[in-house]
Structure formats: C-alpha cells, structure tokens
C-alpha cells in the first residue's frame, strides 16, 4: 500500500504555525490586560463615587464573576495557542525528514531510475504528523465549544447590564446618591429645615418644585428625605383652597364616619376630579404623601403604585441599615442565621420590587399594553411580618377576568414573592392574555398552624380589609371577578364574603373555613348570586380544622367543601409531566401547599378555570368498603391510573 503524504506535510514550514500561535497568545495578553484594566478602573470609580459597604461589596461580587469570565477567555486563547505550538513542534521534528525522503539528492553520474519510494522510512514521520494534526484539531474544537459556552452565559448582559456598571446610574441610584445642581440646591435647603410638622410642610413645598418624574427619581435616591414624607395630611384648612391636598384632606375628614363603600366611592370621586383637573399635581400628591395614598382604597391604582414605590424605597433603606446592625450583632454575639437570612431576603425582594423589569402577562402584540413593566405594588407596609399586594397585568377596558388570591398561615413579606408568582402564572395561563391577577396580603396572617391558625381574629380583621380593597380596585362590572382563599386565606375570603364582598366567584382552596358564623350560603349577603367553589386534597391536615366547632375567637365557620350551594371541585392529581410526582394523586400533608403550587395539576387547572371561566374538574367522592367490624377501607378515584373526573365548563 502506498502511503499518502498530505500537502501540508510536504509544504509546511517549521515555525510558521508557531507564529500564528503567537497571535493567539497576544490576544490572550490583551484580554488579560482588559480584565486588569476593568478591575482597576472599577475599583477607582468605586472610590470616586463613594461606593462603600453594600455598593463596594456588590461591585466586588460582580467583578469577581467578570474576572472569572475574563480569566476563562484568556485561558482558552492560551490553550488554543499551545495546541498550535505543539503542532508546530511536531512539524519541526518531522517535516524536514519528510522533505528529505521525498526529494532525494541524485547521486553523481547516476542516470538510471531513481531510488525506490521510501515508504518504510516515511511512515513513522507521516503517522506522527497525522496524529499531531488530529490532536491539534481536537484541542481546538474543545476550545471552540468552551468559547461558545462562555458566550452562552450571556457575557454582555452579565458585564454590561449588571456586573460592570455600564449603567453606572443604576449602581449610583442604589449606592451612591448623586444629584445635579438643582437637586443639590434642594438638598442644601432640606438640611436646614427644622424637624417636626412645620419642617415637613416646608419640605413638601420645596419638593413641589420638581415634576412627578423628577420627584420620584429624587425620592428613590434620597430615602432619608422620603422618610420625612411619612406623615399624614393636616386639616384641609391648612392647604390652599382648591389644591389637591385640600381636596383629599377634606374628603378623608368628611367621610370618616360613612360606611366603607360610600367612603371609598367619595375618595374615588375626589381623585377623579383631581385627575381630570391636573393629573401631574395628583401624581405629585401621591409622592408627597405616600403613606396616605399608597394603601388608600379608592385612590387610582397608578397613584397607589407610585406612592408604594416610595414606601418600598424607604423600607429597603431601613433593611440596609438593619443589615449593619445584624452584621454587628453576628460579630459581637452568637451569629443569628435567621435574622441574617430574613434581612437578606427582604433586601433582595425590595430591590426586585424597585428595579426589576418583569414581563407583562397580559401583553399582546399590537395592543397598547406594555411588553414589560415594573412591579405593581398596590399595598405596602414593611412593618412586622409585612403586608403587601401586587398586581400582575394591565387592567384596562379589554380585561376580561380579575382574580385576587389571599395566601394563608405563615404568609409574610419574606415568602410573598412565591405566592405572587403563582398569580402571575395564573394570568399567564389565560391564552387570551386578558386576565389580571392580584395577590393580597393586606393583613397579618397567623405565623403557625397549631398555636395561631384556629383563632379567627386575623380573618375578622382581614375580611373587611379585603372587601374594601376589592371595592378600591374599582373593577368595572363587565369583568369577571374572583376571590381565592388558600388555607387561612380561605377564612379571610369567607369573612369578606360575609361582610359584603362583591365578586362573581369565590374559590376556597384547602380553606380553613367559610367564615366565622357562616353555616350556609344564606349567611352571605350576596347569597347564591356569587358562585362559590371549594376543593381540598385527601389527607390535607387542614381537614382537622375545617368545620370544627367554634366558640369565641376559635373556629372559622362551616367547611366550604361540605356546604350546599358550593361547587365541590377535585384536587385530583399532579401534572403527569411533572417528573417529581409522575401524575400521582395529590394527597397527604404536602398536599396543603401543593394545591396552589403544582402547576399543571388538576387543582391548579381548577384555579385557572375558575379565574378565567374555563373548564374545571368536579369532585368525585372516594369509595369506602363495608366492614361490619370497623372502619372500611377508603379508596380514592385518582389512585387509579388514568382516572379522570367529570369536567364542566363554568362559563
């Protein structure tokens, strides 16, 4: 067999491929220099801009990550250079021999046929070069794969968007408060203001020079100033007649003894006038009185959101200040992991509420609804366990459904994001993108099941608040509205229902009860005009509480699963595509949270169905065998693979 010698084995000049490798090494050097420069300049900028503590930590954290990526890029270029150098060394070793063997020098005087083809001598050199070529290819291919993976980590986003402050203003907004000449002049005046109501009034007059947009930015960057806006309104007579402040003070004062629905309607009417006459001043009012407007039922939702952003900013500032205390306490005393984690969680969550841009679940191409939006906080109070309500989607004339979810025992600020995200996903489950959802934690919820949850005072406080909140949403009558209560949240919804909640549908999920004092749907003012649904998984420990006898502050009324006039739905089984559950029946202790968490399960689909007016699965009772000597054996239909309960379209 004749050996084949590739062209490059004959032609390649030793050292040439090595010179190409040098260019790769030069590139590695440039990458390294760029990384070093990045670190130096960022550190220097941090000093210039006053990034200390949190700011410096964040910059360092990002820089460490960026450093890792720059280092990886440099190493990969070096690896590619080394692969070519190795190949070049092999060329240097074998190519001269190949050249010599293929070009024998003719012997003097010899005019006969040339020497025989030196296959045997060539073979080791050709084989060695072929192996060196394949090895170099494999090493380079590996480098290419890793470079692509490095690119897939979204290098630019990582560096430009968050890590390196391409958006320097964002980091400045968070850690280094800066101002232009105008702001500086305002701040200089603020420093001279006296403390107390007179100083706060002067502060508001000073800030009124700014447009609502400027004021919102200013307050976000100066939470210490925003904190001075925490007070309420003075009597109407203090303000200029006809001003928004006077109008709001007047309506709040004159309606304080009216029934809530009338009071909320009057507040709404007052704001409607302000918005008609001077929407800019109305927005300014929300910013100057965030504590008054943020949680005020009847105030326009957009103004509540504006006001609550100021409140979240103050709460974030408080938590950051608390972090210093927590860190100090951790150093001086026993480290308190729970306090540290709670503090970290709130900081992270508040930052998300302020800075994160989220996808609008009701966005439709071609519609006026924005594709992305900031978090929409309709209620906020960071004190204690925290209270908050967040809305997902754009509530507009084309909205068809509005669903409000009330979480239960242990719900607080630290875990609210998870509950809120459930409702984002319910909104996303509407294929028409016309469902707006809200998660409402407007009341302190019990911290634990055994010592707290049997008491009904949380629900007695929360029920009327929820009812008023719903009135405050001012959802037009043509929208389909649903209130969902999970666990203790069910008892809150039940009390709200008992107190005149105006919604089209109520859904109890693993509900603690239908509301204190409620034995049948006749105990609700809306009677059967409201459609009610309920579902609880088999073996859910809430079953021990449901329908338990009540006395005084203990008990939550009838079990909604058992009440006539309430449509009993089935919690069924997990999504068969959910690998962690493989389509098994939802049951037992874990079922209590799974019924609202397990996307794609029968329970989840029922929640979506009730909110959006779609298909739901009705309850199928278990079968209990007859045993004359004791309790019979109960088998549930969803224990049988493939079983599907009856489904109905509810609208």
């Amino acid at each position, binding site marked *: 067999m004749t050996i084949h010698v590739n062209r490059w084995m004959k032609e390649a000049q030793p050292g040439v491929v090595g010179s190409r490798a040098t260019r790769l090494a030069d590139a590695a050097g440039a990458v390294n220099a760029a990384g070093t420069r990045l670190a130096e300049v960022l550190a220097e900028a941090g000093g210039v801009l006053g990034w200390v503590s949190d*700011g410096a930590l964040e910059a360092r954290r990002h820089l460490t990550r960026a450093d890792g990526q720059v280092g990886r890029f440099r190493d990969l270029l070096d690896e590619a250079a080394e692969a070519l150098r190795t190949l070049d060394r092999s060329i240097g070793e074998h190519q001269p021999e190949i050249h010599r063997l293929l070009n024998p020098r003719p012997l003097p005087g010899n005019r006969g046929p040339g020497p025989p083809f030196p296959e045997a001598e060539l073979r080791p050199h050709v084989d060695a070069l072929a192996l060196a070529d394949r090895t170099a290819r494999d090493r380079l291919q590996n480098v290419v794969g890793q470079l692509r993976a490095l690119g897939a980590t979204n290098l630019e986003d990582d560096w430009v968007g968050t890590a390196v402050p391409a958006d320097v203003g964002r980091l400045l907004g968070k850690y280094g408060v800066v101002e232009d000449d105008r702001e500086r002049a305002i701040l200089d005046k603020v420093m001279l203001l006296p403390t107390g109501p007179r100083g706060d009034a002067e502060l508001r007059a000073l800030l009124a020079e700014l447009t609502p947009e400027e004021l919102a930015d200013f307050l976000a960057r100066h939470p210490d100033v925003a904190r001075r806006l925490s007070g309420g309104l003075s009597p109407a007579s203090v303000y200029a007649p006809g001003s928004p402040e006077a109008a709001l003070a007047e309506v709040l004062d004159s309606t304080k003894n009216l029934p809530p629905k009338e009071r909320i309607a009057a507040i709404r009417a007052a704001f409607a006038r302000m918005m008609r006459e001077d929407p800019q001043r109305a927005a300014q009012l929300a910013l100057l009185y965030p504590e008054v407007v943020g949680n005020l039922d009847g105030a326009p939702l957009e103004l509540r959101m504006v006001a609550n952003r100021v409140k979240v900013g103050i709460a974030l500032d408080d938590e950051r200040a608390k972090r210093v205390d927590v860190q100090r306490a951790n150093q001086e005393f026993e480290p308190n992991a729970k306090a540290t984690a709670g503090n970290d969680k709130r900081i992270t969550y508040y930052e998300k509420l302020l800075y994160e841009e989220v996808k609008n679940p009701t966005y439709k191409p071609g519609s006026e609804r924005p594709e992305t939006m900031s978090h929409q906080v309709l209620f906020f109070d960071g004190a204690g366990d925290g209270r908050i309500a967040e809305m997902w989607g754009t509530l507009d004339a084309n909205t068809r459904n509005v669903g409000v979810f009330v979480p239960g025992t242990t719900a607080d600020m630290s875990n609210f994001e998870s509950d809120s995200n459930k409702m984002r996903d319910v909104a996303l489950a509407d294929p028409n993108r016309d469902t707006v959802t809200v998660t409402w934690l407007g009341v302190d919820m019990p911290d634990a099941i055994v010592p707290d949850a049997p008491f009904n005072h949380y629900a007695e406080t929360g029920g009327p608040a929820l009812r008023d909140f719903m009135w405050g949403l001012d959802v037009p009558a043509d929208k389909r509205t649903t209130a969902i209560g999970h666990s203790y949240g069910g008892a809150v919804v039940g009390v709200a229902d008992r107190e005149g909640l105006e919604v089209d549908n109520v859904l109890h999920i693993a509900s603690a009860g239908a509301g204190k004092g409620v034995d049948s749907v006749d105990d609700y003012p809306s009677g059967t005009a409201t459609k009610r649904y309920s579902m609880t998984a088999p073996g859910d420990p809430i079953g021990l509480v449901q329908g338990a006898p009540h006395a005084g502050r203990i008990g939550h009324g009838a079990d909604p699963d058992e009440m006539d006039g309430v449509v009993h739905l089935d919690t069924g089984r997990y999504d068969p595509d959910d690998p962690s559950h493989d389509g098994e029946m939802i049951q037992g202790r874990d079922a209590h949270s799974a019924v609202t968490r397990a996307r794609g399960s029968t329970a989840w689909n029922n929640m979506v169905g009730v909110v959006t007016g779609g298909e739901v699965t009705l309850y199928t009772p278990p079968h209990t065998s007859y045993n004359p000597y004791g309790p019979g054996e109960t088998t549930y239909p969803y224990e049988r693979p493939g079983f599907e309960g009856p489904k109905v379209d509810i609208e």
Partner: protein
Amino acid sequence: VGKITVDKGKLRAGAARVDEAAKNLEGAAGLGVAQAMAAVEDDLPEAVTAGVAIELSRAVAEVTADLMSALQGLAEGLEAAAENFHTVDVVYGEAAGG
C-alpha cells in the same frame, strides 16, 4: 451619611483607559486572531486542524465583541457620571457603622 465631591477628572481618565483597553482588544483578539486563523488555513492545506481554525476565529470574535461592549459600556457610563454628577452622598459604610 457623608458627602464627597466627585473627581470628574479621575472618572474621565478611567473611561479613557478602559476605552484604550477595548481598542487593544479589538486589534489583538479581533483582527489579529482572524488574520492568524485565516493564515493557518493556508499554511496547512489538507490538514484537519485547518478546518477548525475558522471556527475558532468566529468563536473568539463573538466573545471579544461581548467583552468590548462591556468595556465600552463602562467607559460611556463613567463619562456620563463625570458629566452629570457633582457630589455623592455616602449613605452606607463607615458613617453608618458598616
């Protein structure tokens, strides 16, 4: 809470240095690698390594572009900060006990 005056000159100098690093990177890792890998194709006719050289060139170019964007973004951000800001409130840190 303390207040410091922003050293605009330092920010602008930092921006210039970062910009220079981006230019060097463009020359070395962008153009330089592309030329070298194209040459490898010519240097090694029929070699399997030659086939990967151009892929390597593309992958390096993509990551280089990302890194350059980052550097240029930082430079622009520093320029903007130098342009717009005069003083800085140090809200957290030593003054706050951190």
